[in-house]
């Protein structure tokens, strides 16, 4: 049934149909992971009653992927391991993909991105340094993101040097060659802002791209600290780079297939194979549309590891379903940043971990 959904546009399935397909898919995945992942079965060992609502799908907290290897495939079927350190510590999440899941992930990524980029593979300007993808064995989130999106573009050009300074020559060459036509730019939000837009401004450099799409992701935390809103980000980007349609997206390495792209209205949209719920911290019940809580993300893709239903550490709220002004179907929502971290208190008190090993 995921294949049914893959045929259609990711934003064309209205809620009644989507619900039916999602419920069936998530049901199958839940049973599958119960049968194929021991740790998952240990946590959710009750036989699954047919789900009547998405909220009934059991969910894992995201840090579990840092705490233990979770996979539903034998080790010899592991095709690729995605890792991410996130911001919580130095231990990375490890996400195990088999060939099928990896293939599906790529397909879905293309499907979603084509909605925003068109079907043509466009010249691609990457707001990062080429070194970020060099170590191929261990994909970092940044490297994997760039790698994943690279095959949507051609003439890949890295806008930054290894020391994160602007590679003016490369940008110039790219602009001279492609600046008057449609181009695709990609980067991590903070990198684009700090080492791209701001660096250009500091050096008094402007480019007048005629028809660019900038896709960026990676969280607003650092920008919020500098009081940079999405509006500021978008308008300053246009100041330095010309006609750029800017689309933020939300996603996490722990859940393949969940790529939520912000539309022209600035709303993050669920594609047909993924969904979002908002839960209240503490009782963890689903809250009514519009209320702020912690985001749960669901996706039909994670089959090689039990990541189809995850409780994130991010706060957010649902803004609506099937009725966004942009015309796309599906739920749309906004992310309101991470939950406030408190100091780990515990008895780990007089000792500060940074001073370890002395």
């Amino acid at each position, binding site marked *: 049934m995921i294949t049914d959904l893959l045929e259609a546009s990711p934003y064309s399935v209205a809620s009644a149909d989507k619900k039916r397909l999602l419920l069936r898919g998530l049901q199958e995945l839940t049973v599958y992971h119960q049968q194929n992942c021991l*740790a*998952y079965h*240990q*946590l959710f060992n009750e036989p699954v009653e047919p789900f009547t609502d998405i909220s009934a799908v059991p969910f*894992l*907290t995201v*840090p*579990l992927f840092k*705490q*233990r290897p979770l996979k539903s495939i034998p080790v010899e079927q592991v095709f690729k391991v995605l890792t991410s350190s996130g911001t919580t510590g130095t231990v990375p999440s490890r996400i195990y993909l088999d060939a099928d899941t990896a293939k599906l992930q790529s397909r879905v990524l293309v499907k979603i991105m084509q909605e925003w980029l068109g079907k043509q593979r466009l010249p691609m300007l990457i707001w990062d340094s080429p070194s970020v993808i060099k170590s191929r064995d261990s994909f970092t989130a940044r490297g994997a993101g760039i790698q994943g999106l690279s095959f949507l573009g051609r003439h890949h050009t890295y806008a930054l040097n290894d020391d994160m300074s602007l590679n003016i020559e490369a940008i110039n060459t790219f602009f001279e060659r492609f600046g008057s036509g449609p181009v695709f730019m990609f980067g991590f939000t903070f990198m684009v802002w700090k080492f791209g837009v701001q660096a250009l401004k500091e050096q008094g450099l402007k480019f007048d791209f005629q028809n660019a799409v900038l896709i960026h992701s990676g969280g607003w935390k650092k920008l919020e600290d500098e009081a940079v809103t999405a509006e500021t980000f978008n308008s300053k980007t246009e100041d330095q780079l010309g006609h750029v349609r800017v689309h933020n997206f939300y996603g996490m390495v722990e859940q393949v297939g969940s790529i939520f792209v912000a539309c022209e209205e600035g709303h993050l949209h669920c594609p047909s194979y993924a969904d979002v719920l908002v839960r209240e*911290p*503490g*009782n*963890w019940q689903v809250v009514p549309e519009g209320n702020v809580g*912690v985001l749960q993300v669901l996706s039909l893709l994670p089959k090689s590891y039990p990541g189809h239903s995850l*409780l994130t*550490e991010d*706060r957010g709220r649902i803004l609506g379903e099937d009725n966004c002004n942009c015309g796309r179907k599906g739920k749309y929502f906004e992310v309101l940043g991470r*939950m*406030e*971290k*408190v*100091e*780990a*208190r*515990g*008895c*780990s*008190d*007089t*000792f*500060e971990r940074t*001073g*370890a090993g*002395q």
Partner: protein
Amino acid sequence: MTVQVINPVTTKGQLAPFADSKALAYCKALSQALLTEPPAREHSDLMALGFWLRPANIERMLTPYKELKLRPLGHVFHAAPGNVDSLFVYSGILSVLCGNLNTIRLSDRAGGSAQVLCEVVQGLTAEHPEVSARFQIIRSPRDACELIQLQQQVDGRVLWGSDEGIQALRQRTIPAHARELTFANKLSFAVIDIDAVLQATPKELEQLASKFARDNLTFAQQACSSAKVVIWHGNLFNKEKAQDVFWLALSAFLTSEQGQGKYPLTESEHYRALNNAQDMVMSGLASQVKTCGGYIRMAVDSLHHALLGEHQGCGLFAELHTDKLNDLHSQLTPQHQTMSYWGLIENDVMDWLATCLVGVDRAVPIGNALDFNEVWDGVDLIRAFSRVVV
């Protein structure tokens, strides 16, 4: 690296006799300040400290020791814990009452109530210079040269903290004669009698819930004496019924006018508890996670030693059953600190405790788990901070 003294005085600290009148006056003044000054009144742990410092309580506590010939140890260095902001005052003040000079290093993590406490202590320096000079509170990097030098000259050292933290702090040498007390991470548990819960009146249940919440949800369940495990005692047949009744009463209390907002956990603390529970189930340590609003329940089959390191508090209760207290013997380790109990007869508990050769440092009724005793983790602090002259 700098050492910042919170309550500096120009007077040089001098050793004093046991239960010196100036030290008693200091306790009284600190008690009054904590019980009357508005910022302190907002913190329940500071109120409890204020009560503990009342002259009558200090007198009651010191009286049994007056027949001993106690002399001060000398200069004592204390490394305060970060989980319970006000804990350092209890051991610090006992050492002051024993006549010692004290330097207390606050944890870098010392938060809300520690800040208020420091301000109160600052306010006492003008009127109590001699005692303030013996009760010097500092903030400093852990490895400040001054701190290392100071430890080379002390007569006693008190380390509160995690096991690894204590081991790290222990790397700093102290003189050969110096005494060292360590208070490492410990696990506490509550024992509730099944039939007693089923026979309790609604009023009694409400009181139980209120006391249980105070013991175990203050400081986000981070205090070592807060129970992380609930042991259901007695009739297995009625266990589930008693559990339902009890947890329902706790939920009702936490949403009642009296209990609402009293023990707030942050969003990320709630999240941490859920993740912690899921992680422990995946590792095979626990099962059956139930989220119940402000707290989470899960089942365990013993007081497994791994709980000490794994269980992170934040409103997470591991539950197990025992037919009788004697069945717990084989599960106890030196890391088991406070047993708080309800519905059991005090004499029975004390008789059982007499047979525990390993584990359990104190047994108190539910509601008193956070009370500070002068005997802590099996150490008589007053004797430990003194030389007993014969």
